[in-house]
């Protein structure tokens, strides 16, 4: 009786899905270690971070958007546009690299802020505005060039080839940037007014408004932050690929959403942890690594696995939130949430 009670309480705790995700990650790692030689070597684990640093940064921005109850489908295209603009400014206009990075970051933030302003001030649906933003950013890529532009600027090449050694292992500078961004985001989400406003808006926008929180400013800032993250991810991606191309990062928005959801953030907003996003990204990375280690599975299994995981987590979230609303003593029994 006591056990079942504490189990039920654990099921309802806000950190429960995040805990499940961590457990899932451990199980997948153990399964990989048993199944394949050398899977659990420290360098393979660090490679997970090296290969997914850009996805982590995109997903951090996406966590804020989803926490605030919105969605941003434009991040993949903004990422591609950033690589393209950066490559063009470096190779054709020969701007200094630091100025280029500053310019593209400002561009990403401005793009996000413009979409956020449309969503808030004109009361448009987030998904349709960011969908149009996705089209616009991809189209702008092709307006710059249809072909891939190779980057041979020394700083970018150096960032691409530098290996930060620690105890015989190495990581890339991008990993440091991504983890720094994660630390900043965790601080922003849990220790600042902005973070609290984001959670409040995700919980209930009208309540947040009645509480006197700056709803409009926060929403615009959330999308601006997501755009900034996408642009930073674009910079990291151009370090990784050393090129700008309109076809870069197709479908990254879906991976980012999947990572955020698997990381335990509730899709309806207001509930979840930015740190969970790291676990979500690592799980996606482990799936890819497992498939690469196996060798016999084709690449499309990645998509099927990610879809299946997404399904399981969405259903779990739904079941838990239904259970929570039924458990409340004050809730009238008949007022179950509407189906649509």
């Amino acid at each position, binding site marked *: 009786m006591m056990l079942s009670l504490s189990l039920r309480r654990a099921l309802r705790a806000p950190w429960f899905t995040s805990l499940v995700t961590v457990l899932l990650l451990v199980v997948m790692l153990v399964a990989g270690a048993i199944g394949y030689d050398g899977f659990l070597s420290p360098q393979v684990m660090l490679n997970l971070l090296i290969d997914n640093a850009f996805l982590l940064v995109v997903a951090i921005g996406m966590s804020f958007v989803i926490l605030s109850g919105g*969605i941003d489908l434009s991040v993949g295209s903004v990422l591609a546009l950033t690589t393209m603009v950066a490559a063009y400014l470096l190779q054709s206009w020969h701007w200094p690299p630091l100025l280029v990075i500053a310019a593209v970051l400002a561009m990403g933030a401005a793009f996000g802020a413009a979409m956020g302003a*449309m969503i808030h*001030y*004109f*009361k*448009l*649906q987030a*998904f*349709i*505005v960011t*969908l*149009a*933003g*996705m*089209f*616009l950013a*991809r*189209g*702008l890529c*092709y*307006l710059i060039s*249809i072909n891939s532009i190779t980057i041979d600027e020394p700083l970018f090449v150096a960032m691409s080839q530098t290996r930060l050694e620690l105890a015989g292992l190495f990581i890339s500078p991008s990993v440091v940037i991504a983890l720094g961004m994660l630390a900043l985001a965790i601080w922003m989400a849990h220790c600042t007014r902005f973070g609290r406003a984001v959670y409040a808006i995700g919980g209930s926008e009208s309540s947040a408004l009645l509480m006197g929180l700056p709803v409009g400013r926060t929403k615009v800032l959330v999308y601006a932050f997501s755009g900034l993250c996408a642009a930073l991810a674009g910079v990291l991606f151009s370090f990784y690929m050393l090129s700008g191309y*309109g076809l870069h990062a197709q*479908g990254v928005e*879906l991976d980012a*959403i*999947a990572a955020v*959801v698997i990381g335990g953030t509730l*899709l*309806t907003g207001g509930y979840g942890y930015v740190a969970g996003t790291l676990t979500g990204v690592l799980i996606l990375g482990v799936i890819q690594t497992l498939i690469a280690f196996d060798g016999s599975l*084709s*690449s*499309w*299994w*990645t*998509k*099927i696995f*990610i*879809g*299946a995981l*997404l*399904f399981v987590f*969405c*259903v779990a979230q*739904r079941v838990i939130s*239904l259970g929570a609303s039924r458990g409340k003593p004050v809730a009238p029994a008949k007022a179950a*949430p*509407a*189906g*649509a």
Partner: protein
Amino acid sequence: MSASMDSKLIPDATAPGGAPMLAWLLRHPLVRPLAALAVLLLIDLLLVPGFFRLEIKDGHLYGALIDIINRAAPLMLAALGMTLVIATRGVDISVGAVVAISGAMAAILIGGKMVVVDGVSQYVSNVPMIWALAAAMGAALLCGAWNGLLVAGLGLQPIIATLILMVAGRGLAQLLTDGQIVTVYYKPFFFLGGGYLLGLPFSLFIAAAMFVLLAVLMKKTALGLFIESVGINPVASRLAGIRTAALIFFVYMFCSACAGLAGLMIASNIKSADANNAGLLLELDAILAVTLGGTSLAGGKFSLVGSVIGALIIQTLTYTIYSLGVPPEVNMVVKSVVVFLVCLSQSPEFRRLFKRSVS
């Protein structure tokens, strides 16, 4: 929301003759999409030589207009299905994936082996074509049932519920085709997307049949009214005794069926199934067509004719951009700007701001 929609989507009952008649016409919901189409056609008339020329070649009509209609047919189907989904306040972003799945299913089942019969080599299909088509449509319906179950049964947000199939669906289609582009050699299959009946593309007849079926269902039965009421207020509809869950489930099934049919058409037109690229971004075009046609993304009132016109606008726009020699990449930018403008024009807040700045 409803007040602004009503003024736009329901033609006013007060429609006497004279000047009010003109005002009534101008306020008719189909005026804007039709005007947009007319402007595009006017540009084509002025800038594209021979745009309206129709010839009869090999016993069927031939020309730019026919080409546009033929290519717009799959989009029309997808847009018709999407209209109903959007009318219930939902959205289905797995349309492209369903197109890929049904195309792949049909292509692998039909394939085409070369067989020598009476000294003449000819291609035969692996299984009878009707079974292959049925299997492809069955797969599409299964996808729709899956979406419907997630949205209506579990109450997931539509965009997330269909996102799952959007991600996994293309993977499944690639699994079917083993990652290859499957080429079809069986001639009768090509009729679906490239054949002609009475001088007109056969695909047009399929789209028209679907439109008529839907229009009759919506106007002659209470189904259309139910769908609109679910979109306007789901809770009130449920309390009024409408079986909302079943209705929403049906709508997603129908949308996937339309997508499956579009997938067959596309596979038949390109004579192969490409799991990676078939129907890529079709869901966006379908949503765009629905929005262009005047259906509000907030759900409720919908216009089937509007969606068909929307699909025609998109295809004409694409054709115009190609034939003007503008790089086709501009197409995406133009489409996105159009979506922004249409959305803004639907926003009451924006209209208020606009009116204030004008006066």
